[in-house]
């Protein structure tokens, strides 16, 4: 099993794609129908389900082979899927007109900075790895 693209990661990406599409559609629907009081629900449910999904597939992968990347591959995958879905829906004009223009760009910028910070930590953490596995996890 390679330490970059693993079966649990691919399963996580598929679930993330589905959840992100559902999140985007439900958010746009609520905005289109001007149900302002309910717009907090899709992001909240999306956040909870993404957390549960990441934890589930992360633990599954760790139990199979404890790859030492402090969750960076899962984070990067979420980032790529989220913006691919978001920009695709925006391009196809599926997004609500009530969503401020440039909101995706702003999110991309802020999230991109966080992702880069995660990458820096990952690079530091990686120094303690042997063939992708953290030294402390090899003979645990």
């Amino acid at each position, binding site marked *: 099993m390679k330490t970059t693209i693993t079966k649990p990661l691919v399963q996580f990406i598929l679930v993330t794609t589905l959840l992100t599409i559902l999140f985007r559609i439900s958010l746009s629907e609520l905005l289109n129908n001007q149900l302002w009081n309910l717009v907090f629900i899709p992001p909240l449910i999306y956040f909870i389900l993404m957390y549960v999904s990441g934890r589930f597939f992360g633990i599954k992968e760790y139990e199979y*082979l404890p790859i030492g990347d402090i969750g960076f591959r899962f984070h990067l995958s979420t980032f790529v899927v989220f913006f691919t879905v978001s920009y695709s829906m925006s391009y196809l004009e599926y997004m609500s007109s009530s969503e401020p223009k440039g909101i995706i760009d702003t999110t991309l910028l802020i999230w991109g900075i966080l992702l880069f910070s995660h990458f820096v930590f990952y690079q530091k953490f990686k120094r303690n790895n042997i063939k992708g*596995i953290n030294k402390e996890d*090899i003979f645990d």
Partner: protein
Amino acid sequence: MTLDLLNSWEETYKKGQLTLWIFLSLKDGDKYVDEIKSFIENMSNNTISCEEQSIYRSLRKYLHLGIVEFNLKEGNKGPERKYYKLTELGDNLLNQFIERNIDLFYDEKIKKLLKRK
């Protein structure tokens, strides 16, 4: 109180033992997981008990790191089994570990100290 302390000490001591026992079982000859488990339990007088899942998990890591390899051989009944063995790297690793951590117990002074009154 002594028993509680002893159990606590043994629990910590045994945690790090599985790797050594797996390697020793493979030094004894190629084995599949059931045989590794039996070897460990028999040779340790059942003081080390291990779940098959723990052995599989350890073997997957050692396989990934090139410490062990396996050959597929037919079992007595049913499907082919994975017979694991130490690679050259695994063999060197075990030898160096023994040299640095086990051999010192053969020192006469230590041997004397280990003898119970």
